């Protein structure tokens, strides 16, 4: 499917962020819980509403881990499917988003492992091309891709989940199955590396 490009945007707000302070978060949470309960009882329309609520974020989590749009799409779908199967195990007092993100992250990690096994010895590790941003100079994109390719997969995931998606270290640790301290250290090294490699960026912008 051909998709349009997204213009670089500020960090996307989380689904439940209360910017109005009028208790809409509480309402949203109650609505979400009602949807979860209905979905647990087999209501696919309710599950569909949950997919609609969380798919952007789920995609972003997957994309941070797998790197490519196509794989992120597959991992997000797999994640939702796993979540649907495991819905009866979800406890209503948990945060549905956090639970789902963990499942999606697992699906993405699983996909990455499978891809690695399949592609072993065939291709060098590369960061696949992202959506084309017409406003971005191609050499900058190439430099960024080159710099990202030099990071480990985990460092790449951590910096994207933290700096792009706004997750906290602890949340990233839970999603990737690593200690919070490791996420913190990965972030530090990833930032330092990108800063070193893309050092002259400001003069080019």
């Amino acid at each position, binding site marked *: 499917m051909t998709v*349009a490009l997204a213009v670089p945007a500020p960090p996307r707000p989380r689904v439940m962020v209360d910017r109005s302070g009028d208790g809409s978060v509480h309402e949203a949470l109650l609505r979400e819980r009602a949807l979860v309960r209905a979905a647990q009882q087999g209501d696919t329309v309710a599950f*569909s509403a949950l*997919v609609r609520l969380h798919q952007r974020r789920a995609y972003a989590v997957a994309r941070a881990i797998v790197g490519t749009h196509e794989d992120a799409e597959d991992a997000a779908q797999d994640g939702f499917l796993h979540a649907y199967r495991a819905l009866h195990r979800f406890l209503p007092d948990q945060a549905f988003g956090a639970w789902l993100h963990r499942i999606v992250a697992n699906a993405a990690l699983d996909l990455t492992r499978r891809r690695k096994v399949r592609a072993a010895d065939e291709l060098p590790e590369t960061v696949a091309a992202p959506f084309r941003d017409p406003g971005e100079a191609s050499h900058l*994109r190439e430099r*960024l891709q080159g710099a*990202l390719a030099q990071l480990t997969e985990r460092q790449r995931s951590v910096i*994207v989940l933290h700096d*792009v998606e706004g997750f906290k270290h602890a949340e990233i640790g839970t999603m990737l199955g690593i200690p919070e301290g490791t996420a913190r250290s990965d972030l530090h090294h990833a*930032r330092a590396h990108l800063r070193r490699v893309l050092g002259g960026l400001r003069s080019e912008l």
Partner: protein
Amino acid sequence: MTNDMNRPRRDTSPSGPDDEITRLLRAHYAPPADAGYWEWLEAKVMRRVREQGSTEWWDVLSGWGRAGLAAAAVAAVVAGALTLRAQDEERHVAYEAVLSQPEVVTLQVRPEEPATEGAESVRFDLPY
């Protein structure tokens, strides 16, 4: 005091994020902006969910089928075993019946009209 105190400060520490790099990363990892894409993705997820639901239904049925076959096989084995046992028992009873017959066979010798002189017939009277 100015309002600057309330503004979020830019993290310029060596380990903090670099604004320009973060901007590039956001552009690189930007999700599709087209609403149609998300509708399509939702529909695709739900199609897979429903397919899985119907698969599970068939799985249940085939599970029942498998259980039925297994139960039938067990029943056949049990029935066969019972039949064999019954036949064996019947044979055993018959054998026992034969063995429990009186050991002594009474013989009666009854003289019949001799067809020829000096000839005699022997008749066994068995009790069954």
